[in-house]
């Protein structure tokens, strides 16, 4: 029944192949920058944003005065005019903000790409800065409730009175149904988290650098919201990441080897709620990720088998594993088997995955750190470098309006 729904309903809303996409191969990421990732930065978010942006602009071989566009998440708390006043950007010509939390991460690059491809701006910086660990923890119920009680979202009012008010629990509802439909056992799900922790051991910037984990550690960790254990969850982080986006023409003169954008896409299917889409036929999958994947493959002309490295937004391990299924790297319900033993997703496997440690073990900078890692892989400078990586797929937050990118060398 569900497959029939997918076939009929989803396919009906796909677009035919296009001749022309103004972003494809015409735009590149030429600079990446970040701060240290920590659990307590002792600095404010404006400060972190300034440092990351400065580092990204330096990395690109530009000066701050070259930057004429800024792109952020609506969730970012740094006031953009204040940021401009600190960085010293003489005249910003383009700005926009993408909604939907981490689901907007790749969309910031897509909007920046659209701006430079159409001449609205020359160099756009996408950034995310947050003191998620030491400051405003929106992943916790009290903070989230306060934030959302002012948000004009109809559906949350049906959830909060039942003690159901954290992203973790909302994701657990998807995960439980997925486990039920595909017969997945609670104790079999640890390999994803385990391999990401391995990657973090090679990445000195990772929060979990120097803190290896065994499968038994995974099983022994407390159940936070059943069915999610502690190490199924991303690591709250203080830090910032910034990316510099420009046209391919300008990228040719860049200091670094450009990461060209082959495809960028967003999706909000009907009956989507922010992480609580329980009234679509499918609760065991991520339709928006499927749509984004189809759009990325359509525009790029690539398929899952052409992707050399994937950086999947994994606020929870299940979120990453179900994306493997939705993006066609394995069949439905096969994500856990795909990760079993870890070899397929290790650096020399068929799909090296979240090679800096992902959101679970590197840092939770709302997925911007995943985009930066994809760029490093294409430059050949990653701490766990995939040999000869030429294409990278990056996604944004699963289970809510989302976005994705395919980058190439």
């Amino acid at each position, binding site marked *: 029944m569900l497959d029939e729904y997918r076939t009929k309903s989803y396919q009906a809303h796909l677009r035919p192949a296009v001749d022309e996409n103004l972003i494809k191969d015409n735009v590149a990421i030429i600079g990446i920058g970040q701060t240290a990732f920590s659990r307590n930065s002792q*600095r*404010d*978010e*404006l*400060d972190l944003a*300034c*440092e990351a942006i*400065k580092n990204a602009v330096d990395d690109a071989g530009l000066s*701050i005065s070259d930057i004429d566009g800024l792109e952020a998440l609506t969730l970012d*708390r*740094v006031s953009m005019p*204040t940021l*401009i*006043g*600190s*960085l*010293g*950007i003489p005249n910003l010509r383009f700005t926009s903000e993408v909604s939907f939390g981490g689901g907007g991460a790749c969309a910031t690059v897509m909007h920046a790409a659209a701006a430079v491809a159409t001449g609205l701006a020359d160099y756009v910086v996408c950034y995310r800065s947050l*003191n998620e660990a*030491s*400051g*405003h923890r929106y992943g916790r119920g009290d903070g989230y409730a306060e934030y959302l009680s002012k948000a004009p979202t109809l559906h949350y009012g049906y959830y909060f009175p039942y003690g159901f008010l954290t992203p973790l629990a909302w994701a657990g509802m998807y995960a439980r149904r997925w486990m039920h439909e595909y017969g997945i056992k609670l104790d079999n799900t640890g390999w994803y988290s385990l391999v990401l922790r391995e990657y973090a051991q090679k990445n000195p910037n990772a929060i979990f650098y120097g803190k290896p984990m065994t499968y038994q550690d995974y099983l022994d960790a407390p159940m936070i919201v059943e069915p999610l254990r502690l190490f199924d969850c991303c690591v709250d982080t203080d830090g910032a990441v910034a990316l510099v986006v420009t046209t391919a023409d300008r990228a040719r003169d860049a200091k670094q080897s450009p990461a060209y954008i082959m495809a960028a896409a967003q999706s909000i299917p009907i009956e989507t709620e922010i992480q609580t889409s329980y009234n679509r036929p499918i609760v065991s999958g991520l339709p928006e990720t499927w749509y984004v994947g189809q759009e990325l493959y359509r525009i790029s002309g690539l398929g899952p088998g052409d992707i050399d490295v994937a950086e999947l937004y994994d606020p929870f391990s299940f979120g990453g594993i179900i994306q493997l299924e939705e993006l066609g790297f394995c069949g439905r319900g096969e994500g856990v088997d795909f990760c079993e033993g870890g070899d397929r997703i290790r650096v020399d496997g068929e799909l090296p995955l979240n090679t800096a440690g992902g959101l679970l073990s590197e840092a939770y900078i709302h997925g911007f750190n995943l985009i930066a890692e994809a760029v490093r892989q294409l430059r050949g400078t990653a701490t766990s470098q995939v040999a000869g990586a030429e294409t990278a797929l990056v996604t944004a937050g699963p289970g809510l309006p989302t976005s994705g990118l395919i980058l190439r060398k």
Partner: protein
Amino acid sequence: MTSSYDPTRDVPRPARWEVLYRSSGPFWDGVASGKLLLQRCASCARWLTPPRPMCPGCQSREHEWVQSTGRGTVHSFATYRHAPHPAFPAPHSVVLVELEEGPRLVSSLVGIAPENIAVGQAVEVVFTHAADDFTLFQFKPAA
């Protein structure tokens, strides 16, 4: 008129926003101890008002705090004829003071009736204890 606010009402506190905008902390700490401190870039000596973590001129993240003379002139002002808040009975004037050092600060003027305030008027800083745990900087006509 000796005070531009009603001390019996709770005056809105400055948003120090420790997590988001930590840069303002030393400024308000200075005010609490009766000093008007200005942030200056340690690299290119540009004044940074309001305080911020990076110099927009040279992108340096190093800065120093310098005590202002507290003297300046009224650069502009606005007068509320309807109280904007219970703590500030009308008429209530808000002044933009240009300090001798160059930066401008928004404040209020004590010791003068709103109709007597003039652009260009010389003023100097005073510190007002608005509450036990809260000091405000204000200005008065220069001696």
